[in-house]
């Protein structure tokens, strides 16, 4: 059983329009088919990269898995759980890092933030404290726990988001552009951390969306190439890297 499986997933968005445009042409919707029948299988224990240019639909795909966007059609299964039918059961097995560093309570300390999110996963009191201490140790966050979130650097915020996603010890992790906003050194350390700690040591399955070829090459053992609404290729990283030029096949007309 794969950790994540998507079958024929489709999603079309209606572009939001300014009021003036709606009044002039009330029925002229601008629709874009972001996912046009996506099939994807992520084996357990793998570090799979979802590689694609900006706007390919990577974030959309992760959000569909996390239940915050509903697909128009298709099936999702997470460790054998039908994620559309039982979204909350699926969320219990899923850690989500959506790469929005604002998504904490700024006035609370890092520890208070973790305690609060632990409660949403039904982790309370001693058990929560224990878990937070464990994660802090593993993530080198001990020195930061007492600081207000607003005073943490971007690098620590990323770490904290990662720790939050692991509070309930999920088997599968979704990460959206985990190195965005980090300087090259910090990005490299973050990548190393994901590959060594999360995947190799903790045995998590990671699906990581990125548009950075280097990053994908550096850490992923498998890659799925997403462009024009489809998965163009999925399989071993080495083979996928030979085909990355297909990702940008339609970019010739675009301005540089």
């Amino acid at each position, binding site marked *: 059983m794969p950790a994540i499986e998507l079958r024929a997933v489709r*999603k079309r*968005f*209606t572009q939001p329009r300014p009021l003036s445009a709606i009044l002039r042409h009330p029925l002229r919707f601008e629709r874009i088919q972001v996912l046009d029948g996506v099939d994807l299988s992520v084996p357990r224990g793998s570090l799979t990269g979802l590689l694609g240019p900006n706007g390919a639909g990577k974030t*959309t795909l992760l*959000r569909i898995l*996390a*239940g*915050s*966007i*509903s697909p128009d059609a298709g099936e999702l299964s997470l460790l054998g759980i039908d994620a559309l039918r039982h979204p*909350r*059961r699926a*969320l*219990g097995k*899923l850690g*989500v890092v*959506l790469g*929005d560093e*604002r*998504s*904490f*309570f*700024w*006035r*609370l300390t890092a520890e*208070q933030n973790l*305690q*609060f*999110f632990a*409660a*949403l*996963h*039904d982790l*309370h*009191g001693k058990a929560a404290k224990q878990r937070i201490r464990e994660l802090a140790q593993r993530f080198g966050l001990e020195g930061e726990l007492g600081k207000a979130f607003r005073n943490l650097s971007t690098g620590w915020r990323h770490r904290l988001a990662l720790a*939050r996603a692991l509070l309930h010890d999920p088997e599968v992790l979704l990460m959206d552009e985990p190195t965005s906003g980090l300087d090259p050194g910090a990005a490299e350390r973050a990548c190393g951390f994901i590959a060594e700690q999360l995947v190799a040591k903790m045995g998590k399955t990671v699906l990581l969306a990125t548009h950075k070829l280097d990053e994908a090459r550096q850490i992923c053992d498998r890659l799925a190439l997403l462009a024009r609404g489809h998965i163009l290729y999925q399989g071993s990283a080495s083979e996928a890297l030979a085909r990355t030029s297909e990702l940008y096949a339609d970019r010739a007309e675009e301005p540089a």
Partner: protein
Amino acid sequence: MSLLRKCWAFVRKDFLTDVSYRLAFAGQLVFTFFMVAAFYFFARMFEGHEIASLAPYGGAYFPFVLVGVAFSSYLGVAIRSFADTIRNAQVLGTLEALLVTPTPVGQVIVLSSVYDFLATSLRVVVTLAFGVFIFGVRFPDANWTGALLVLLLTIVSFSFLGVLSAGVVLAFKRADPSSWLVQGLSYLLGGVYYPVSVLPGWGQTLAQILPITHALEAMRRLLLTGASLAEVSGSLLGLIIFSAAAGPVSLLVFWAALRRVRREGSLSQF
């Protein structure tokens, strides 16, 4: 049990977030005191006069308006709290983080508002306490058990207005203008400052639709004249009918809004 612990986590989070809490609360105390004092002097204008429309509530204006002002503050918090919670979480970017946990959306929103309701309850108690300890209002025959029941019913029925507003905010990502309409009408027609009986016929009829009318009617009769629950059964029925009608509608609107937002992918947009 688990719900209670989650509730505690929310209240604690909101308390810690609200660092300006103590100062703001001190300011509110002073404001509340001035307001209660203002109504005390306002009421003195009527001293020595028998006011027929106040007779069902014991006859005196000050206790009448004190109860009205105190309990009407639940209306504002009930209408705004759920919507504000969503709006704030959208702007702060925390909404999606809250919703990718196994805690159901409904729970997240209700629990996020508990702190506001607790703070309001504290304000209500303080308002009444000023009336009692400084301005000498007495509730000699008050039916406190009955009042507690009416309070719960009041909070539930007011909250459905809030859920409706929350649905609008979720779907359109704008403050909901209709919530001000409901609040304005409630203060105009609901009998906060004067008895509903002074309104013209159409006003009295319209007032029957508003939950605040029934809530204040019951609360005043219970606290000021020591009425039994049976004697205020008309108002209780009013609140129950309102909840039975507004409850399903507001929940439906909210779920429809949530579905729409999931389809549009705009859960975290604002």
